């Protein structure tokens, strides 16, 4: 159990995740109150990475449920093992029906999916419900019982309550709004792009082979790009890829003039690349002028 937000931030840093003070406080309070934590923010700011690092820091097994449109209870919570049930029936032709009927819906024939696995786990786990905004509203409503009471109801078996209270982390890319009921049950963190200083630290820890000058140049360049009106802003992982790409090209510093061909590592839409290329010319002129 971490005793302060600073302590938590320190533990996460050891696991390779640099968290801001405000987010660390919120996450710390969520853990202290044993409440689910809903992490929102644009793609690539490190929402899933935070959950993974937290699982390592808390020494808990990670159980991950990736959400998508059409995800239902049979894929998220449980299903009955029909083949095994049929085999059981074939083997027990002479047995008493009442006994078999009861037996067929026992835990032996239950296929645990991630949510049930987290509830039934004998050791403490971290349940990551990733990209919840991709799932349907029905699934979101179904989650309410799990989030509030840490229990699930299976009609044939009754209510199953968690034995070890899993840490629940939900992530969302903000593509749709959630109900008030879901939000109320969670502590909310909004992660955004890191500040220049923090991005330099992140890049230095993920790519220590880079020169200090290149690391600083790349982060400053990315921070500048994030101010442009682009369709998709570069994420932290794209910053790392971009810096590694420049390093592979034997660059020790970033020059606006020789970035052509590398920009697609950073930006994913041709329209955005074209916009940036246009801007680069201006920045290059400005840089030359300031040197003079």
């Amino acid at each position: 159990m971490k005793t302060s937000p600073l302590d938590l931030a320190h533990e996460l840093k050891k696991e390779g995740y640099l968290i801001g003070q405000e987010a660390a406080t919120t996450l710390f309070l969520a853990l202290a109150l044993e409440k689910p934590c809903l992490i929102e923010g644009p793609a690539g700011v490190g929402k899933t990475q935070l959950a993974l690092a937290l699982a390592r820091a808390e020494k808990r097994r990670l159980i991950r449920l990736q959400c998508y449109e059409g995800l239902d209870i049979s894929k998220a919570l449980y299903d009955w093992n029909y083949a095994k049930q049929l085999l059981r029936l074939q083997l027990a032709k002479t047995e008493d029906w009442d006994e078999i009927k009861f037996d067929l819906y026992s835990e032996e024939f239950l296929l645990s999916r991630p949510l049930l696995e987290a509830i039934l786990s004998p050791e403490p786990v971290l349940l990551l419900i990733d990209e919840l905004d991709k799932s349907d509203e029905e699934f979101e409503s179904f989650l309410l019982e799990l989030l509030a009471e840490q229990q699930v109801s299976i009609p044939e078996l009754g209510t199953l309550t968690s034995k070890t209270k899993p840490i629940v982390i939900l992530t969302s890319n903000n593509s749709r709004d959630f109900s008030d009921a879901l939000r109320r049950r969670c502590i909310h963190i909004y992660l955004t792009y890191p500040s220049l200083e923090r991005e330099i630290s992140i890049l230095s820890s993920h790519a220590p082979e880079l020169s200090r000058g290149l690391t600083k140049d790349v982060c400053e360049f990315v921070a500048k790009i994030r101010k442009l009106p682009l369709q998709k802003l570069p994420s932290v992982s794209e910053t790392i890829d971009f810096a590694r790409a420049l390093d592979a090209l034997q660059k020790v510093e970033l020059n606006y003039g020789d970035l052509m061909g590398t920009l697609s590592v950073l930006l994913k839409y041709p329209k955005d690349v074209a916009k940036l290329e246009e801007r680069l010319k201006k920045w290059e002129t400005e840089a030359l002028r300031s040197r003079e």
Partner: protein
Amino acid sequence: METMDGWVFIRLVHALRQVSLPISSQDILDAQTCLVRYPDIPCKQILKSLLIHRPQDAGIFETVWKIAVENRESTELKDSLDATLKDKEENRDSQGIGGQGAGRGSGGISLTAIGDILDHCHISKLIPFSRLEELASSGAEYEEVVKTVLADIDYYTWINSFDLAYQRGTLSEDEWYTHQNNRAFILREIQQQVLMSQVTLENSWKPLVRQHWLFKPLSSLSEEEKELVRTSIRKWARKLALRPGSRWKSYNKGTIDIGKIVQQSVQWEGGLFHLCYRRRIPRAPELVVLCDVSNSMASFVEFLIHLVTCLRARFRKIRVFFFIDSVWDVSEFVWDDDLSGVKQEIKSWGHKASSGFSDYGAVFKELAENILREVSSRAILIVLGDGKNNYRPAQPEYFARISEKVRKVFWLNPLEEMEWSEPDNVMKVYQNNCSKVYRCRTASDLQRIVKDVF
């Protein structure tokens, strides 16, 4: 670390609830638990973490916090008045960065004298408190008061001088971004100061509620608030996109797909099979959108088109028309995620020769005679217009013809209901032929319409 006064806590929760933040009893209990258990963590951080459930509420929390918790500092602000007035004398006839900005306003320090080096901690000293009190008690609208205060501190001269410097190339892009940040900061600070003075004067949270982005007229939103509305529209639309059409509502998995069951059964040698269900598809009629893009309507159109763009997957066919005194088709813009084309089209009035004054009668006539035959009888027609016909003939027979042909007609009007019966407004004439007329003035109105219509 200082502890939080119970009365201040209650006042804060009450204020946050007043401005539409959903704070439950459980939230209060959690907050109290953490305030007691973790005295080393700043109160503001604890409360922000536990009471904010949506990212868009963070801004309003900051404002409420300043008013409800930090308002005690207003006395210090009053004390600073003398110092400010003294400083003001020293800043007379200064000149700004773009070679402009001579002189200053009448209320406080001139921004043109400061340049772009702002002391963020003491920005409030720019405005004398007595001036704010005076303006707030004059009965002027919030926007007006903000504008007056900005003029007082030479804000407009200040931003013009930087715009000019940037255009001339004497300001680098980095300096330009720094200035943009300063500009946004000053604007936000002054808006907060004005709000604080209005809340104090009215002794109620209503001024704050009126300035919540959900309840503000769409035409008076700041760029930041516009982005909030656009994000919310995307979310509402996505929620709708996931809502199944009514045809499959009888069973939430859809209907059994015999073909697929047989196919899978064969794969399993006829032994075991799973029931397969047809994919639910959204109800998909045709949508026809007709928008008045005359000057008074432009800002509202932008948001409706954004909504339609987000909802395009729900419809088999979408047609969008703009009009002032004649109609033109702009459906192509709905298929592009980038709305800059639409904005340009609204601004330029489609490069059409137009008087700039709406003529609903002529527009409905043109629609009924030339376009109506291409529209399906299952279509929903949405008209966005204020109904101001500039004393031209309403020609209601054409609108009646349109209304008969399509399945439903919804009219979205950004004006208040009492304005619909003004002499040059024809809303009342057309109202009988509409399935429903909605007031569509704020993001909150738009949210209600999204739920009702789509």
